[in-house]
């Protein structure tokens, strides 16, 4: 480990090489964190001075992102994925075993500077979990044997390069292909169509296709691009949202691993249509392992004249793409928070309107689309809108990638025409004895078997692609507890309904889970949920209560049998709360027990 004393020099060098733009602050911080396992004070001081920011701004950014730390994590920073599907595969036992073997407590750096073990939100490896991130690199399919070998390597201080490389392999696990996945990566054909037909004509084709955003919200892609194209500005930007943070989603990871060219071509196509010269791929920090291959793909496209100046020899068709890393903040999947993060700031969602199409990155018109949306746009340019509309429903044309995980035979990525029923998906992935399906991730819907006849489409159950299956051996309350804790952790803290409401819901679900919940608490949950939905600043707060409400509405048997007798239960154990004072005063007998009814 390099001594932190040279962190100022290291930071100066980074800034010199990188152009010293304040918008790159987060990128500098990621590099420094990777190098020192923390952001040393000298680095903060240097960043603030050179970028003309106050130290508190720099510290504010560090504190916001889960992957940035002010104190050293040690030679190995090990994060265990805490997604519910990883937990179902045994991640909690692995976490305990890892801590025991390494002699550390969760989230507390070991005293020898060797390692820190902590949990992290879903790493997007639900089909091949349990997964760990070690210094940002993914290790999949961890079992006890692999874990013990990891412990030995950590204790020996062996650098990651010397570890068995097959541990770091990430599989695609594609089980069903359709319009998007049937073909290999793009090689410029859609851009040739663009140059042949012109931007206006191709935009019309996209409009005819009825393509809607694949992140889950389903906004018309053609309209978004048109609004951005029509907004008057000196610069426009294209942003690909690869901050795939919704628990249980991993299809974008597969696209970026094996269809990166098509994604980049989609961004280039968008740039050609709206008139952008610069684009960003915002890659979640958990997918850092993809960086090298993505940079190679970009290099190859530049070498082939598909990126850079005068693309395909067309004068004025200039466009290039930078990759920006996230640092462990779910909220940055929200497009305006993502833009803030791209600008090097804390990922706090903006007040909308204005929307990014008119005022996005650096307040210029910006298109932000999901990875899969760009890919679909390429296919539409190549094959036409009629071809695209041959799949899906009238209101939801085309296909949708699903990331399927949990209790089923074949976990992985499935491409279905939109409008497919949940039943059919469950049958294809080999799921029996299903108690519940979580569609669209923690922010989505928890559906019981009575709802399995419903379809995945924007007009019925909309989804960004997460599809988690829970059989009857699972406790639905475990699932809801995992989700409410997730939201309480991931709230950006900007608005009170979400920041406080999320914590209150978490505590109430914990109380119910532990058998202390009462009818009163159920009413409280409904009240808080309604308030969060009505008054939160952004979609995170609007959707965070969904798992609780679905539990209350669809799984009454699960929670009713957990209710404590009587209408009210204190929210904490009063006798336990007195034990410290008794110990401090030596008054073991006086004061008495406070337990008992009201």
């Amino acid at each position, binding site marked *: 480990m390099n001594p932190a004393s040279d962190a100022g020099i290291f930071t100066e060098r980074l800034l010199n090489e990188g152009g010293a733009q304040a918008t790159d602050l987060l990128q500098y911080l990621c590099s420094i964190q990777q190098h020192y396992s923390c952001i040393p004070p000298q680095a903060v001081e240097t960043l603030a001075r050179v970028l003309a920011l106050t130290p508190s701004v720099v510290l504010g950014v560090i504190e916001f992102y889960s992957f940035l730390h002010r104190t050293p994590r040690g030679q190995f920073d090990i994060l265990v994925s805490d997604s519910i599907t990883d937990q179902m595969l045994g991640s909690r036992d692995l976490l305990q075993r890892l801590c025991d073997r390494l002699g550390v407590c969760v989230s507390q750096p070991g005293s020898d500077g060797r390692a820190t073990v902590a949990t992290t939100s879903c790493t997007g490896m639900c089909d091949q979990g349990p997964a760990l991130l070690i210094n940002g690199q993914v290790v999949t399919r961890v079992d006890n044997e692999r874990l013990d070998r990891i412990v030995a390597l950590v204790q020996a201080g062996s650098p990651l390069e010397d570890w068995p490389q097959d541990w770091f392999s990430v599989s695609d696990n594609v089980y069903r292909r359709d319009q998007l996945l049937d073909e290999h990566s793009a090689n410029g054909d859609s851009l040739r169509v663009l140059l042949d037909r012109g931007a206006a004509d191709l935009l019309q084709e996209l409009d005819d296709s009825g393509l809607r955003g694949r992140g889950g919200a389903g906004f018309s892609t053609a309209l978004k691009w048109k609004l951005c194209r029509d907004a008057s500005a000196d610069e426009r930007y294209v942003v690909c949202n690869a901050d795939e943070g919704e628990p249980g989603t991993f299809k974008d990871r597969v696209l970026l691993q094996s269809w990166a060219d098509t994604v980049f071509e989609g961004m280039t196509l968008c740039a050609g249509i709206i008139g952008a010269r610069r684009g960003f791929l915002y890659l979640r920090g958990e997918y850092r392992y993809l960086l090298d291959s993505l940079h190679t793909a970009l290099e190859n496209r530049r070498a082939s004249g598909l990126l850079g100046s005068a693309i395909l020899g067309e004068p004025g068709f200039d466009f290039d793409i930078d990759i920006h890393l996230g640092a462990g903040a779910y909220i940055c999947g929200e497009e305006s928070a993502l833009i803030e993060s791209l600008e090097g700031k804390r990922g706090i969602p903006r007040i909308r309107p204005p929307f990014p199409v008119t005022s996005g990155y650096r307040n210029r018109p910006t298109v932000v689309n999901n990875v899969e949306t760009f890919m679909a746009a390429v296919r539409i340019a190549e094959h036409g809108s009629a071809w695209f509309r041959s799949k899906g429903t009238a209101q939801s044309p085309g296909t949708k990638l699903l990331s399927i995980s949990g209790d089923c035979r074949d976990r992985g990525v499935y491409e279905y025409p939109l409008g497919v029923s949940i039943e059919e998906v469950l049958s294809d992935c080999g799921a029996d004895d299903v108690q519940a399906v979580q569609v669209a991730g923690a922010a989505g819907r928890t559906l019981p078997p009575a709802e399995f006849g419903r379809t995945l489409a924007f007009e019925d159950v909309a989804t960004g692609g997460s599809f988690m299956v829970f059989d009857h051996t699972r406790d639905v309350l475990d699932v809801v507890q995992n989700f409410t804790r997730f939201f309480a952790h991931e709230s950006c803290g900007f608005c009170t309904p979400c920041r406080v409401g999320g914590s209150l819901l978490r505590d109430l679900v914990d109380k119910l889970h532990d058998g202390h919940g009462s009818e009163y608490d159920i009413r409280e949950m409904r009240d808080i949920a309604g308030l969060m939905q009505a008054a939160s600043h952004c979609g995170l707060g609007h959707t965070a209560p969904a798992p609780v409400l679905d539990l209350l509405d669809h799984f009454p048997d699960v929670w009713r049998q957990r209710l404590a007798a009587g209408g009210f239960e204190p*929210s904490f154990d009063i006798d336990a709360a007195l034990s410290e004072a008794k110990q401090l005063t030596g008054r073991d007998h*006086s004061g008495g027990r406070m337990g008992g009814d*009201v």
Partner: protein
Amino acid sequence: MADKIRIATAPLAGCFGCHMSLLDIDERLLDLIEVAEFDCSPLNDFKRVGSADIGLIEGGVANTENVETLRDFRRHCRILVAVGACAVNGGIPAMRNQFDLRDCLEESYVNGIGVENPMIPNDPEIPLLLDKVHPIHEVVKIDYFLPGCPPSADSIWTFLTELIEGRPVSFPYTQIHYD
């Protein structure tokens, strides 16, 4: 004449500011005692709650005495009201929640400036402290929450008159607008 409404009030871990605000209804107290009478309250110095229609609680729950008083009120009051920020949220006293109890006590009684005979007090007469300060609805069921630090005399007046007259309680915007 029908029986008067009985009101009981109690201060827990608070600053008495909410009781001062109650007194701030000024001459309207005379209107109040036309229809209501006080059960136990610091205002009449009766210590134990008898039986009341409305119990007003100021302050959060910080020690065993607070727990006992609060439970006593819950048993004897038909309607129990959390009055003010400390009762509703824990308020200022709950700022100690970010520290360990040991650190709080040592800061006050062992390491503090000017402390003589440093020791953590252990007299059995002193109520034991809870490790954290809690809002009162975490200990007993609460029927109404009256926010404010303190709630203004006008909002206390509105609350009491509407409750006593059996109307749904609603405030003019100016009475619950804090910035």
